[in-house]
């Protein structure tokens, strides 16, 4: 066990674990997109960045790939980190506004406006599908090709792969494939619907056993009831 300083508190963590694992162990919430516990960390989405070091020598690292070291000083929610994360989420929303996972991130982190033209792409290059295919399915049917803005996920030579067993693992794990609550017809770039819910259902229904994150299903009912009352 080694000691690190996490947000000003000295804590003990197992040697060899990453900053993200240490933070999760101590309940410090760090947003991630390209991270999955069953896969090797990749560090592409940069949402999990934290500030390490002290004074003027601080720098940002992605917590999912950075191993802890004795005496490491970590700040997970400094002003700069939060600002950077918000802008990254803004870029993600502008890239792929149709994804529920990304919209949820935006709502959760208070991203309330998108200053960029939406691109409506289907892939944010998080690399989850590539890793699932390689590590869990042991197929290696897909990978990255090209570089820079032409980088994409594809099969070798862009032809149907012989090693693909069409297991669907890539679709299952894809954060962009999970569509927004509104379905395919999207009116706005940013959803933020969850932020606009005024009260949760439990206050309306006495014996509700609601485990969902804010959902709008019972709100309609409530509105109708209010209408009836007015009548």
């Amino acid at each position: 066990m080694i000691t690190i300083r996490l947000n000003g508190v000295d804590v003990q963590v197992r040697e060899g674990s990453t900053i993200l694992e240490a933070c999760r162990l101590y309940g410090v919430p760090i947003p991630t997109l390209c991270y999955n516990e069953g896969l090797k960390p990749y560090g592409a989405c940069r949402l999990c960045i934290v500030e390490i070091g002290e004074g003027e020598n601080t720098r940002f690292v992605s917590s999912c790939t950075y191993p802890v070291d004795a005496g490491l000083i970590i700040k997970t929610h400094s002003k700069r980190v939060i600002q950077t994360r918000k802008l990254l989420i803004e870029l993600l929303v502008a890239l792929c506004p149709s994804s529920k996972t990304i919209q949820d991130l935006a709502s959760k982190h208070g991203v309330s406006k998108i200053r960029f033209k939406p691109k409506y792409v289907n892939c944010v290059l998080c690399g989850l599908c590539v890793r699932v295919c390689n590590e869990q399915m042991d197929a290696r049917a897909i990978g990255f090709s090209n570089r820079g803005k032409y980088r994409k996920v594809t099969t070798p030579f862009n032809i149907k792969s012989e090693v693909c067993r069409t297991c669907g693992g890539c679709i299952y794990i894809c954060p962009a494939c999970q569509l927004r609550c509104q379905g395919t017809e999207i009116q706005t770039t940013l959803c933020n619907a969850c932020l606009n819910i005024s009260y949760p259902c439990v206050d309306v229904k006495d014996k509700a056993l609601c485990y969902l994150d804010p959902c709008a299903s019972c709100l309609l009912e409530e509105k109708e009831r209010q209408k009836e009352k007015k009548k």
Partner: protein
Amino acid sequence: MTQKKIRSIWELKSLREKLVNDPSQKIPFISISSGTCGQVRGSISIIQAFRKYIKKNKLNEKVRLKITGCHGFCEVEPNVIIYPEGIFYQKVKPTDAPEIIEETILNKKIIERLVFTDPQNGKKFPYETDIPFFKKQERLLTLNNRFLDPCNIEDYILSGGYRALCKVLADYSPEELITEIKNSKLRGRGGAGFPTGFKWSFCRKAQGEPKYIICNADEGDPGAYMDRSLLEGNPHSVIEGMVIGAYAIGATEGFIYVRNEYPLAVENASIAIEQAKKYGFLGNDIFGCGFNFKIKIVRGAGAFVCGEETALIYSVEGKKGTPRQRPPFPAQKGLWGKPTNINNVETWANIPLIINNGDKWYSKIGTNKSKGTKIFSLVGKINNTGLIEVPMGITLREIIYDIGGGIRDGKRFKAVQTGGPSGGCIPEKMLDLQIDYESLLQAGSIMGSGGMIVMDEKTCMVDIAKYFLKFLQDESCGKCLSCREGIDRMIEIMTAITDGYAKEDDIELLMELAQMTKNASMCGLGQTSPNPLLSTLRYFKDEYIAHIRYKKCPAGVCKALIKYYIDPENCKGCTACVKPCPQNAITGEKQKPHKIDQTKCIKCGICYDICKFNGVKIE
């Protein structure tokens, strides 16, 4: 005859003495600059012309030819230097060959026509050492280029080569050697400036066998070619440095990672490796000390990001060149998971120099924290383009005005971009900045590998920043969201600025994006990618404002914001511009001022370039 391997310092000494006393050494020789730059300007046909004339007139005993790497003064290529006098002839043509041999070699006369003339004051400089371009330099690494045939190891031995290696293997323990390099305070010439001695000691202490060393010759900055010139002109100095480094670290195998776009460098380095093997400087049991080391050349496919060390390692392994998170550093887990040390070409070439002259001598050159000399490639709108080697701590003004000979066509200096695409633009008011790693960093730029692009008043800084961002966008590996999308969005805004539809708060958004890309990206490419933007925003904000608020491009570069028109006072009515206009937008009779139809004009600028009377103007 097979070459006997050299086994000891005495054998090396006797070989050197034999070479020095060879009667052919007394024959005057013509050193022909024939690096890639020289060959492009036609040095090969000049060599052929010289050879033909020598053969025809049987002058083998009177003159020797030496085909060398780049001499450095690329502006006046192809150039030749005649030794022992050191007479410098510029822009030589094949037809000049007989005259040079007859007049200069045989009759000892200087041909006035071929002598270098300073474009600023018309002064003539017949001797190479007098030319201002060379005079202010301190050429420790590049001076030998002109005396060495890179394909001939004996030339290198003659100049004192492999003496340092011999000395190291005989007198130093690896630890002593590392201490010597630490004391010399040599810093990595690849850009980041990490102290080389410390880097070596990390790798030496690391657990794991075998250990590897790599020479990083993946030079990709636009307008930079220092490493190419060293590998082409003096490959043995790099190899010697690598063998010494391998001894210090305990490595048994080395790689030279060079991009395939440098065919001559690949060829010369391969020849040099073969020759070094033949003479026993590489291979098993070097100098009879039981130390084994071999070098392989790995050719890169030319991705800029493969200059980053972790991406380079992947590329050597045959994988896709994508940087990875450090730690673990390559010194702990590098090539195939083994301790690996990577240094730049120039760093390796510095090693024999330090060993031969001692760490105290080396640490006297330069500034407090940056020691030694640095090779820069001075390019852009400057009179004397070329490779220059200067001591650290020299000011930009000295480089640009004394060595570079000032700005082309008498225009005004505007900025200099140092450190390649990841560097920043330094404005005129900071010309007295002393060049070292720290001061450049403070000025918002970096040392980088040593590119230096000079810009004049006709350069639009917004356009330049956009150009470098586009370069980085193409060359980014595309893994990190921050770099891939950050650069893309910055270019989007920059395009809006140069096209004239940006809003004023876009500057704020640009700054925010730049900070984010700088902070959140993983590798050096991403972290330094906003530098051109940040430095131009810092020093040339008024230009951004002019583009956004007044929809004007002060330098007259951004096509969407300018208008070509004909000044009736200057126009002589020569009709020279009428025909070349692809849009037929220019009308007018002979001897009368012409006119440009603005609705047809596509702003190609052909008329502007063609007009000799300054009649076409930019608004």
